């Protein structure tokens, strides 16, 4: 059928008419495919299938009509981009000289195009399957090596969420690593304001007493060549403490020697945590040389745009001996089955999902994509290039100081790297406003003081504009910028080398850099190759249109503490997204501040804590957690100052109601909350969820619903309707923010009105008021009055346009269709594999939610073939393995998501059935148990080409088990990796090139 355009249509309307709805781009199965799948399952429609799976009592239709939605009708891709352009136009990109831990930076275009905007990097998952993740593991070990070198410490992890949360983790690490029984932690008075606020919020929940300590003055009278005066007395006369925190250089910009403070800490068994600026460390002594035990900070200024606050990779490094106390992800070197070096995640058993309430950190997601970018910035520039950038920054700061002094402006710093404080009695506001008018944002500390930070992008005309604001230009508007003074104390000059590994000294040409990035990307399996059916991870499409706005300067080039007037478009986007997320979850208010799911959990629990405290119920500290819950739940509860009590689950993975009632009765006076995941971590819609919520409420407790599995519910049921008081969502699962190879994430926390005042606020927020749904559905506002959980007021807003675009282009109907398609796909996989692998759990109609658990234990018992064998063999078949042994050991959890098409889903089913047949052949004795295609998987090209072939199966079976693989084969770069070897021989920095000689 040919459609003829009416000549009366405007060109714009014509193009819209031709544009296919985005839902058809996002959802992989079309009507014909869905009909085929439904026929296999015996249902007439997707709605009928979901109606049979989701309990009727929680269905959204029981609570409101479809027309009540606050979501606008779905926009086309072009319309959504046009709206984003309009929002972007309401932001003002000024030259930022605010500092405070965020600096403008030049992202090398080769890194922007080949990493940030490249789906091979941004659509990969956390490297839990190391054999198919060698590229980003190498990139991350580059990052770790860079951090360890620059900080002068032994081991660095592969990234924290931001600098302030890294300081909190440093404090927690000091408490467990120190020999002191003290509950006191000394905090540098010259620390960043957001870090102080974060420390206060987190310490309060854990009974840690913070002691703000002035370790010295700005040293306005001292010369940089003289040793800086340090008030070590201040740290010795303060009684006992388990740790001390030093900002280096300080928030004021001063550069001082904290050795005496660190020695005083060590003398009483306390640990020293130093937050250090990576660029400054190319010129000044490292924390390691100064004696620090832990260094933390951010790598933002290494080529990662400010993005109004994030995402960026924070860092944490420790001295030798503290490796096993580190939070977060750590990449290490091990060997593969052929004895070749291979990278992998180390010490995974120390993560919160294994240690549960014994965990000492709830950090899960890292900031992999951003850590890769920062590491590559160092690879591209090398040690000389970084030193040159740092010198340029310092010289420009020196020019500014000289010119200010020449103009008789009082510069308070005697020492500085890139930041100075200037005294302008009663004139600060006026000067900051004048600078703003000239296009430069400065930091107004108080009415008498201004902070100015220079960065890599600062130009002479920026300096002239600043001087002009101070009245420091001549009659012609000129400034003498010839003179520069140094602000770095001689005693702190860095003499040790760094970044000597060849990887930091090879890729100077763009050709070389481009090929290095391509080679690493080719090692890895991301969504641009095929399906990643990881249960509980929701690896759906990250559409190109959703990603577009991320690198627009109006979103990427904004400082998190920019003036309110500069960020109007951002605040509007945030307000809209808060409203939409509130609407689809049935809550009343949302905070977008938490920059990971774990932080959202913590924020929700802290809100519950704040609510109970405000009601005079300080004794309510018990948090009930089902045994089937993700381990992070327990870790977050502990960090919110709660006591974890485990509730039993039945054999279907559902909460044991009798045990729940018994535990509630036992703790009726102290019950704070129940944490429940819905649908359950076992991928089943629990039918008793309403009863469970009622029982907790009746005892005075709050219900926390973990939103990890929201992709099975959106559009069909809402947490707020069936009893939830607060939830966190994972925008990097349900709302399309790409996993980035292990971060960034965004974990908004959504709550009912009574908890909204306790959601995270921020002392430097541009707008304290947030959307609040009124009782009658009308729009109101509420101040989120809790303490901050992220360094920036809105967390990682730089990636919020992704989720905004997804919701905008799907509309309420599209989101519901996506859920239906996801549930259909999971049930179709379960049905297709039922003859080969038993389904571990299903709901009352034999249906699963959006994921299904395949029980491999009978197969293992019968054939000796393990979950690991099947997962690694899937690599030979061109697939990423499903989630292994979670939530139940010896199982695989499959989540196909709505974005996969029927062809890819069938290909997966075919591969799994073929692998089952191979396992049966092992059981039948066709192949020996210790020499078969499963046991030896995955197979590299080298392993089938080199030397004599002495296996019981042939080469083609090894690498081309299906003929369809011949043209598009994914070749893993390494064979199966030895986990124990890597954990016994912990090496977490780049190995020398000779290690790869073979």
């Amino acid at each position, binding site marked *: 059928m040919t459609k003829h355009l009416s000549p009366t249509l405007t060109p714009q309307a014509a193009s819209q008419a031709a544009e296919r709805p985005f839902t058809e781009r996002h959802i992989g199965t079309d009507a014909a495919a869905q009909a085929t799948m439904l026929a296999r399952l015996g249902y007439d429609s997707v709605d009928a299938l979901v109606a049979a799976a989701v309990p009727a009592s929680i269905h959204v239709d029981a609570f409101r009509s479809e027309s009540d939605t606050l979501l606008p009708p779905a926009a086309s891709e072009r319309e959504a981009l046009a709206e984003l352009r309009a929002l972007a136009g309401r932001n003002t990109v000024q030259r930022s000289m605010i500092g405070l831990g965020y600096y403008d930076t030049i992202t090398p275009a080769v890194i922007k195009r080949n990493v940030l905007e490249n789906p091979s990097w941004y659509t990969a998952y956390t490297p839990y399957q190391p054999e198919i993740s060698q590229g980003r593991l190498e990139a991350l070990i580059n990052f770790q090596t860079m951090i360890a070198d620059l900080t002068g410490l032994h081991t660095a992890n592969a990234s924290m969420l931001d600098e302030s949360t890294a300081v909190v983790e440093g404090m927690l690490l000091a408490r467990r690593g120190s020999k002191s029984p003290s509950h006191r932690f000394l905090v540098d008075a010259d620390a960043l304001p957001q870090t102080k606020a974060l420390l206060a919020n987190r310490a309060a929940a854990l009974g840690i007493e913070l002691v703000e300590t002035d370790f010295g003055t700005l040293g306005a009278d001292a010369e940089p060549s003289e040793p800086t005066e340090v008030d070590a007395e201040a740290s010795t006369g303060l009684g006992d403490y388990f740790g001390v925190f030093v900002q280096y250089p300080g928030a004021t910009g001063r550069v001082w020697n904290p050795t005496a403070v660190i020695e005083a800490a060590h003398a009483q068994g306390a640990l020293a945590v130093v937050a250090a600026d990576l660029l400054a460390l190319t010129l000044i002594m490292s924390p390691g040389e100064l004696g620090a035990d832990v260094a933390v900070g951010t790598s933002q200024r290494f080529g990662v745009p400010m993005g109004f606050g994030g995402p960026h990779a924070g860092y944490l490094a420790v001295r030798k001996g503290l490796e*096993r106390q580190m939070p977060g992800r750590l990449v290490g070197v091990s060997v593969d089955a052929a004895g070749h070096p291979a990278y992998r995640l180390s*010490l995974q*058993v*120390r993560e919160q999902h*294994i*240690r549960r309430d*014994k965990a000492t950190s709830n950090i899960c997601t890292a900031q992999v994509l951003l850590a890769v970018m920062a590491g590559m910035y160092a690879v591209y520039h090398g040690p000389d290039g970084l030193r040159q950038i740092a010198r340029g920054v310092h010289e420009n700061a020196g020019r500014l100081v000289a010119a200010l002094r020449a103009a008789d402006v009082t510069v308070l710093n005697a020492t500085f790297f890139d930041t100075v404080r200037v005294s302008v009695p009663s004139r600060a506001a006026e000067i900051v406003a004048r600078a703003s008018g000239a296009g430069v944002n400065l930091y107004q500390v108080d009415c008498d003081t201004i902070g100015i930070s220079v960065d890599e992008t600062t130009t002479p005309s920026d300096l002239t504009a600043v001087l002009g604001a101070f009245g420091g230009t001549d009659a012609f508007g000129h400034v003498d910028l010839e003179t520069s003074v140094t602000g770095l104390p001689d005693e702190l000059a860095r003499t040790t080398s760094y970044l000597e590994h060849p990887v930091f000294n090879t890729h100077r040409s763009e050709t070389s850099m481009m090929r290095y990035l391509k080679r690493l990307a080719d090692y890895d399996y991301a969504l641009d190759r095929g399906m990643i059916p990881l249960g509980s991870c929701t690896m759906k499409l990250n559409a190109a249109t959703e990603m577009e706005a991320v690198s627009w300067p109006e979103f990427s080039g904004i400082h998190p503490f920019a003036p309110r007037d500069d960020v109007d478009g951002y605040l509007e986007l945030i307000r809209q997204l808060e409203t939409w997320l509130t609407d689809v979850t049935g809550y009343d208010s949302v905070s977008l501040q938490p920059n990971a799911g774990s932080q959202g959990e913590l924020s929700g629990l802290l809100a519950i804590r704040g609510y109970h405290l405000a009601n005079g119920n300080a004794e309510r500290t018990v948090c009930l957690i089902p045994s089937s819950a993700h381990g992070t739940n327990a870790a977050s509860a502990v960090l919110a100052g709660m006591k974890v009590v485990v509730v039993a689950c039945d054999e279907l993975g559902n909460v044991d109601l009798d045990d729940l009632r018994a535990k509630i009765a036992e703790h009726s006076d102290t019950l704070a909350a129940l944490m429940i995941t819905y649908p359950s971590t076992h991928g089943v819609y629990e039918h008793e969820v309403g009863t469970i919520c009622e029982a907790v409420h009746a005892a005075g407790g709050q219900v926390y619903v973990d939103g990890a599995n929201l992709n099975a519910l959106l559009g069909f049921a809402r947490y707020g309707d069936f009893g939830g008081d607060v939830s966190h969502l994972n925008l990097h699962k349900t709302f399309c923010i790409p996993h980035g190879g292990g971060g960034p994430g965004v974990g908004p926390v959504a709550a009912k009105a009574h908890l909204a005042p306790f959601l995270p606020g921020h002392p430097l927020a541009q707008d304290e008021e947030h959307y609040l749904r009124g009782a009658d559905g009308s729009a109101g506002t509420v101040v989120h009055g809790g303490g901050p959980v992220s360094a920036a007021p809105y967390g990682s807003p730089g990636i919020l346009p992704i989720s905004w675009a997804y919701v905008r282009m799907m509309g309420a109907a599209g989101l519901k269709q996506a859920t239906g398609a996801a549930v259909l796909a999971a049930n179709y996989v379960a049905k297709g594999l039922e003859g080969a692998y038993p389904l571990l759990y299903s709901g009352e109609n034999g249906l699963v939610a959006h994921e299904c658990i395949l029980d491999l234990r009978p197969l293992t018992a019968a054939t000796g073939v393990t979950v690991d064998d099947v997962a690694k063999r899937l690599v030979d078949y061109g697939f990423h393995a499903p989630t292994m042994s979670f939530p139940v050991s010896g199982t695989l959890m499959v989540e196909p998501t709505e974005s996969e098409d029927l062809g890819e889903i069938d290909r997966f089913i075919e591969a799994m059935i073929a692998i089952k047949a191979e396992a049966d052949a092992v059981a039948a004795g066709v192949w020996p148990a210790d020499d078969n295609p499963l046991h030896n998987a995955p197979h590299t090209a080298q392993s089938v080409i080199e030397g004599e072939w002495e296996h019981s199966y042939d080469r083609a079976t090894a690498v081309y088990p299906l003929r369809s693989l011949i043209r598009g084969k994914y070749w893993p770069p390494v064979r199966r990796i030895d*986990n*124990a070897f890597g*954990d*016994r021989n912990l090496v977490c920095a780049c190995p020398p090139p000779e290690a790869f000689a073979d």
Partner: protein
Amino acid sequence: MTDQTTLKYTAEHEWVLLEGDTATVGITAYAAEKLGDVVFVELPAVGTGVIAGSIVGEIESTKSVGELFAPVTGTVTATNDGVVDSPELVNSDPFGEGWLIKVTFLELPPLLTHAEYSALTGE
């Protein structure tokens, strides 16, 4: 090879060899098997005072982090540097070279006999 029937045991899957006022402590083969490949062992410093039932060390495998409990109250007099350097000894020889600590004690809390421990593990 230690005669396992003469050893005492705890419900935390530790074995205790009593010689005078000194208890030598390790984890049982059953525990080592359940833990899987041991990759790291952290032991208390010699001279540390320990209380029966308290956590005094860690045994980390590729599957989990297990805790070492003091089976008796007393003072640590020796630790096995061999397992710190080669944690796999806990798997290969749990009752021998895989011993962990020696503790001198004043009085003995109730411990399990070999038969009682075997009943506990069902082996």
